[in-house]
């Protein structure tokens, strides 16, 4: 971790520094995870599927009202946690060096987790919208949910490999 024990002699100082290090470490993961979920919710959908591929439209007019309300909440939370994640990153940065590999692992985990949620809950359970219209959905759903699971797995592996050493305590 970035904030090393300063004195070495006094135990209180070491404990405090360890507490800070653990806190900053948790905050690094939280920042990455929130940012990953956030960009998956707010940006990937907007830039890739609405503007890039144009598979999605503004609103397909077929959504039930409950799902429309849920979609509004996901939309708001998506932007909120994107910004939250970035501010947490800035906070970690002003307290010391950022463990970038660990942060990246948390981002990949976040993207995977949200995409899995999107593919299963939003598309299949709530039926807010579909990936593409007028086509056989099965390969699209399989690809979307499959890549989500893969991203989640890769993210968790990175997080596992970058976990802080226990010996420091």
């Amino acid at each position, binding site marked *: 971790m970035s*904030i090393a024990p*300063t004195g070495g002699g006094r135990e209180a100082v070491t404990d*405090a*520094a360890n*507490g*800070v290090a653990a*806190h900053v470490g948790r905050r690094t993961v939280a920042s990455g995870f929130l940012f990953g979920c956030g960009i998956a919710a707010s940006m990937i959908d907007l830039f890739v599927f609405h503007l890039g591929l144009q598979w999605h439209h*503004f*609103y397909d*007019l077929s*959504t039930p009202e409950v799902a*429309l*309300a849920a*979609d*509004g*909440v996901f*939309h*708001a*939370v998506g*932007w*909120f946690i994107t*910004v*939250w994640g970035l*501010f947490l990153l*800035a*906070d970690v940065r*002003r*307290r010391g060096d950022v463990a970038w590999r660990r942060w990246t692992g948390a981002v990949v985990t976040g993207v995977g987790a949200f995409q899995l949620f999107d593919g299963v809950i939003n598309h299949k359970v709530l039926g807010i919208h579909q990936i593409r219209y007028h086509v056989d959905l099965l390969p699209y759903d399989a690809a979307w949910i499959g890549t989500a699971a893969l991203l989640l797995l890769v993210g968790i592996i990175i997080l596992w490999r970058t976990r802080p050493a226990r010996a420091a305590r």
Partner: protein
Amino acid sequence: MADSAGAGRPLIAARMDHGHGTGPGTGAPVGSGGTDALGWAAVDGVLVLFLVVAAAGYAVALRASRVRSRWPVRRTVCWYAGLGCVAAALLGPVGQAARGGFTAHMTGHLLLGMIAPLLLVLAAPVTLVLRALPVRAARSLTRLLRRRAVRVITHPVVTAVLSAGGLWVLYTTALYPLMHGSPLVHALVHAHVLLAGYLFTAALVGPDPDPHRTSMAMRSVVLVAFIASHSVLAKWLFAHPPAGVGQADGQAGAQLMYYGGDAVDVLLIVLLFSRWYATTRPRARVPAGMRTGP
């Protein structure tokens, strides 16, 4: 404005076309033209008076407090830009077109209900007034701001309901067509939109001293709920345009509301967190202030 569905409501469509063609002040059916034209002119007059008073008031307060520490230029710029947005939303080409079409109306509402309030709040007018007033008067003002009634009216939940709830009432009831037929209703709706927008923005991210400031968690939840309500209403309007608004115009206006609203909403989130970021600045290398979080 092309108004295909408007054909079903000839009265409103006729009024709107009239307003669009001949400009503010004459947007009335020919029959009752005299009093209505007078009404629209009176509304514009009151608005100009408000703008002049607000512009002059800020300048007077700046002058009265010039002996104190420097006032940031960006705040002054924000105030006049905010007043400019109010003027642009209600007077001139946008204000004129807004009486005819829904998309233009929505442009005006983004300016009046979101961008202008944000700029006016960032200009910190209460702080400026407190600096400009003599100590005794400033103390009375602070006492006034500490009142229970002010606490209620500036609570994030109340301001969000006033602001977002007002929009639902405006677009899903008969208020929208009514507003285009009556200068008085028109003026009241716009005054509400600006004032509710100001109180909402000030409660969340205002730089002015706020004795009733609620927690970061409260403000976060309210902001998320507000953004959700805003985006749901935009999609609802995409499918169900207000009475007298054509399908194409309604859909373009709804998308403008959604994406334009999003841009301002993201700005509000950034401002909310930048306040948190400033107030949780670490003072030492020990864990002071580490507990706080949103």
